């Protein structure tokens, strides 16, 4: 109580709050109620009589020993074990059939006591935020993080192996492993990412082009002619070339030439760019060492008539001064046109300049690398870089440059290292090594920013979150609430739809269902895509428009395109574009349970499966999964002959009459049957195999319903639905399975939610503000 009170009044005084929490944890650890009487008086005698001989001091089958449990054992602390004990008792699997059996009443009594004891703990006493194992970025997170970090969106993770699923989600730290093949793919992906995003060398600027003069046109073949790779001018004559100038501006024109010198003067070369734009070059170079001569001029856009002329031929063989005898000729190699030279270089690709915005002066590369790596590493590691990290990274840049790589290439190497580092690939929450003896610590602002962004965006924090973290402003309830709202409005929160909703409602699995094409020819790839899109858009509206959670079950709108509307028999929707459609009672639809996606993925390929549908609703919607069937379970007949012998419902009811099956099927089947009016691909029908469908039924608690609409209205009123959504979302947000102590958190979230009319965003905020989301246990406290 005290915790709640202080939270409400001293909102921003987080330090005080934290101290208060820590004090209370310390006090309460000693004051846990030791109400051990039930375990000691009722459960222990039962265990002694039926269990000790296999699970006791003598034998510890399955590593279970009940005999050494202390009399004050609090069984809720080992929830997994005792839930298993309860389930095995429930399923008559234990004690094994060859052993002594308790009476049915005795068995039932112990089952109930265990259930009671499991719920028997005091939230004021237990305050354990749990401990999340470091999480490797999963495929979606890797792609999104690369997208937001580098600005390249090309899904490198498509080639990665699938991430394993635990507790229904693929972002569970303990389950996300890293095999050598994945490491190899990370290395290759990092290389692809940098080559896609960054230039390895800058293009030469200004642009220049060399033109080989021997390819020019001579106006008199016998005077001017190509000699190998040069053009020889043997008497006064011209070589001509039309060139295209793309842009008006100042150009630098270089000519490589030499003379076969003779007479008093050097060979003279005239470059003409037009009638009144001529330059004469005194070519003083000899054949053994041609020179490059350059002039600068303005060229206009359009065709340039370039003319090279030899101006001063000289051929004297009878001069009295011997030195003046000789034949002067001119040889020109190439003309290079470079420019325009007085304009700004074109901008580099955005992905390049956001990481490497400029070009360092020679000799300053390493210092510059450090300057630009610091902000980059902060984003990549989602916390400021340490000096040591920057030292080692700049060493890497320097090393690459010593290997004669360009500065840009060297940066590529360093950034590949960042993208392959464990600091990038995992989300670390490192506990201080000098911790002060407290079990629990608040996450630092950067850790919190990452938790938030990977929860809502499946991606890295953006600059706003990182800046808030840096300023130490993130850990404030109002700031967090505002950030949640902002983040949910951002298109990046589509990730919450595909990753959270797609796994909670399982519509991600839609692409693996295979309805029998002979029976359901209308189930085309386009229809499958439309079904998925409907569910995604539906979830998106509830999320962004902050609707009530109960809308998931019963909403008066959905999103359809023509294909899907035709499939549903709803008129007035045209074209491939999805539009929001209002639903009335006549549509017989509303909420996820009547959407094609869910109805299809809870069916068998050849028929509906009321059992699967019932089980799906119990698991995903009500959060009360039925225990699995015993292995030797009779399955439903589905041959033609069987179909003739009665409706599916009658056949299932026969099956249910067996006591082994009754307990669970009494829960699953009526729920599933309520949806029998929807066939295996979600179309409405009145008859099944010629039999009138009867969707009415009774829940185990006696509640009666007429059909799907009626049942949905009933499910809506149940707290178990809200609890189920809370548990799923908390699991996804934390990346770990829920433990017994999390029940306090889900209870308090439930209270907040009911105070806020079950609004979707209230749920997200309550999760974000919860202790397990904001704190962490520093000890490996798991039992």
């Amino acid at each position, binding site marked *: 109580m005290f915790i709640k009170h202080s939270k409400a009044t001293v909102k921003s005084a987080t330090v005080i709050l934290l101290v208060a929490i820590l004090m209370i944890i310390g006090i309460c650890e000693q004051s846990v109620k030791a109400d051990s009487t039930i375990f000691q008086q009722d459960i222990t005698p039962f265990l002694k009589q039926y269990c000790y001989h296999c699970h006791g001091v003598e034998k510890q089958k399955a590593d279970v020993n009940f005999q050494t449990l202390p009399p004050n054992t609090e069984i809720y602390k080992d929830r997994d074990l005792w839930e298993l004990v309860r389930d095995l008792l429930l*399923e008559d699997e234990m004690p094994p059939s060859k052993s002594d059996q308790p009476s049915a009443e005795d068995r039932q009594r112990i089952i109930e006591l265990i259930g009671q004891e499991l719920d028997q703990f005091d939230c004021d006493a237990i305050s354990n935020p749990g401990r999340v194992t470091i999480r490797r970025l999963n495929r979606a997170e890797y792609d999104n993080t690369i997208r937001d970090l580098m600005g390249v969106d090309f899904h490198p993770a498509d080639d990665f192996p699938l991430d394993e699923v635990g507790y229904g989600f693929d972002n569970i730290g303990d389950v996300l492993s890293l095999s050598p093949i994945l490491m190899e793919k990370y290395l290759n992906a990092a290389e692809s990412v940098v080559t896609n995003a960054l230039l390895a060398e800058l293009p030469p600027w200004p642009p220049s082009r060399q033109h080989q003069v021997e390819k020019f046109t001579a106006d008199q073949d016998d005077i001017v002619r190509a000699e190998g790779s040069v053009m020889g001018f043997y008497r006064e004559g011209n070589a001509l070339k039309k060139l295209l100038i793309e842009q008006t501006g100042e150009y630098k024109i270089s000519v490589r030439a030499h003379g076969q010198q003779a007479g008093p003067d050097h060979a003279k070369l005239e470059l003409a760019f037009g009638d009144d734009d001529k330059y004469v070059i005194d070519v003083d170079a000899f054949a053994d060492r041609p020179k490059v001569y350059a002039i600068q001029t303005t060229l206009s856009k359009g065709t340039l008539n370039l003319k090279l002329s030899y101006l001063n031929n000289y051929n004297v063989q009878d001069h009295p001064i011997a030195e003046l005898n000789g034949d002067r000729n001119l040889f020109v190699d190439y003309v290079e046109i470079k420019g325009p030279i007085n304009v700004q270089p074109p901008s580099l690709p955005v992905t390049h300049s956001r990481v490497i915005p400029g070009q360092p002066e020679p000799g300053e590369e390493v210092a510059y690398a450090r300057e630009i790596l610091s902000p980059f590493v902060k984003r990549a590691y989602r916390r400021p870089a340490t000096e040591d990290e920057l030292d080692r990274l700049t060493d890497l840049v320097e090393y690459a440059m010593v290997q004669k790589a360009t500065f840009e290439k060297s940066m590529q190497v360093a950034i590949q290292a960042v993208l392959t580092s464990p600091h990038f690939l995992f989300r670390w929450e490192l506990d201080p090594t000098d911790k002060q003896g407290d079990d629990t610590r608040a996450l630092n602002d950067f850790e919190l920013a990452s938790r938030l962004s990977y929860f809502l965006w499946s991606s890295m924090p953006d600059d706003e979150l990182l800046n808030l973290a840096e300023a130490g402003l993130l850990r404030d309830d109002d700031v967090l609430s505002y950030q949640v709202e902002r983040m949910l409005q951002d298109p990046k929160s589509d990730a919450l739809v595909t990753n959270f909703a797609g796994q909670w409602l399982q519509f991600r699995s839609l692409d693996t269902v295979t309805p029998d094409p002979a029976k359901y020819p209308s189930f085309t790839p386009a229809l499958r895509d439309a079904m998925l899109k409907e569910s995604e858009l539906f979830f998106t509206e509830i999320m962004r428009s902050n609707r009530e959670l109960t809308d998931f079950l019963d909403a008066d709108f959905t999103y359809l395109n023509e294909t899907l509307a035709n499939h549903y028999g709803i008129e007035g929707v045209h074209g491939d574009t999805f539009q929001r459609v209002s639903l009335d009672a006549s549509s017989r639809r509303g909420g996820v349970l009547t959407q094609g996606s869910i109805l299809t993925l809870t069916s068998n390929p050849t028929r509906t499966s009321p059992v699967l549908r019932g089980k799906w609703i119990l698991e995903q919607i009500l959060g009360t999964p039925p225990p699995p069937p015993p292995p030797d379970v009779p399955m439903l007949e589905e041959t033609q002959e069987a179909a003739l012998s009665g409706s599916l419902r009658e056949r299932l009811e026969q099956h249910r009459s067996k006591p082994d099956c009754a307990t669970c099927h009494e829960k699953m089947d009526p729920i599933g049957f309520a949806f029998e009016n929807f066939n295996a691909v979600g179309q409405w029908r009145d008859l099944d195999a010629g039999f009138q469908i009867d969707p009415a039924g009774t829940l185990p608690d006696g509640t009666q319903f007429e059909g799907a609409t009626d049942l949905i209205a009933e499910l809506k009123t149940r707290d178990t639905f809200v609890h189920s959504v809370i548990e799923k979302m908390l699991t996804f947000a934390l990346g*770990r399975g829920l433990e017994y102590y999390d029940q306090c958190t889900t209870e308090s979230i439930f209270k907040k939610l009911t105070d806020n009319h079950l609004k979707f965003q209230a749920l997200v905020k309550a999760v974000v503000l919860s202790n397990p989301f904001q704190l962490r246990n520093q000890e490996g406290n798991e039992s």
Partner: protein
Amino acid sequence: MKNMQPWTRRNFLRGLGTALALPALESVYPQKALAAGPNSEFPLRTAFMFVPNGMHMPDWTPRNTGSYFELPKILSSFEHVKRDLLILSGLTHDKGRGNGDGAGDHARSAGVFLTGVQPLKSEGAEIRAGVSADQVIAKAIGHQTRFASLELGAETGRQSGKCDSGYSCAYSNNISWRDEATPMTKEVNPKLVFERFFGNQIPSEESESQARRKLFRQSILDFVLEDARRLEKQVSYRDKQKLNEYLTAVREIEQRIERADLEKQDRPDYLTEFETPEGIPSSYEEHIKLLGDLMILSFQADVTRVGTFMLANEGSNRSYRHIGVNEGHHSLSHHQNDPGKLAKISEINEFHARQVAYMIQKMKSIPEGDGTLLDHSMIVYGAGISDGNRHNNENLPIMIAGQGNGLIRTGRHLSYEFETPMANLLLSMIQGMGAKADRFGDSTGLLRGLNG
């Protein structure tokens, strides 16, 4: 130098200690057979191929034991390689049973298949099986080839939801376990297998010399290893385990880069002629065939000597329309002895076996010295469940193809005593491949009679 000694019976006994029952010693491997030993001319390869949901046993088990037996229906496509098969009846994976862990037979049967260890029941809090036989072998001999092992699968994992009650999907989707907490992720896309094992997968290769690229990659690996080492001092328990996965993976890549230097640059014809796969074929049959071809290719080119191949994930409910089975495999496997369903299961089993038979025939068509690639291989094929309806783990459907450099006397059907551990076969293969192990999983000794 010690391990260069010839493989004598005395050495063998010493290595095994006293736990071994004597009759097993009758089949101690002959000197010639020692996998990577100094006397073997061709390296010994091994692969473990897995199918889910059990087998229709009456159509799998030959009626007679010994050398004179007829191939039952499921195995009929092995007609041409019948003399290369050793069918083993009666093997058991006790650790695949509930043993107090309750439901989840499917997940367990895959988790135990190559480990012989009871998988820890967990949806994720702590994934734990055992090191699998292929990985024990890979650790011992993997350094001799560019890749220590190859893991293939023709079915991707589930994208959402649960795989089997109380067990993380990691158990149902993997049979190869690098250490007890890390499954070896399998590759599903033939294109990626090809690029990784044989191709030039590196972008911008032409823009930069091989040598410099390698140098840079090495320095990147050094850098990240240093990151990981510094982190090691700051993390505890589970986080440390994850960091170890990272360290191991990076070191393995480093070793591979070093090994790549030792390889010849010339590509043999069969490799240059192999058409680069384009991706995952839409036909399941083509998909299996292509992955099988790649495994054979990697054995032929001696890029690796150890492989695993899951034809489908455990509990898979895929339908087999192309052979006229529209129902899901898992639903069908709960057949209640319905003749119609049994027939369909048998069809699925036969389909899978046909794909394996194709591979075995192909291996037999590749000459190596006086023999064939198949002669220098041991290919295990089978399931972790016997009857899909009962989910029982005794009398598993298991066979070996290939004489394994003389380790295996093929052309026979052997029937073992009830409850003989499957782990005994795995232990025999581990030793046969040249890895040191005295026991494996719940093994009680070596498997008698493999060599006749």
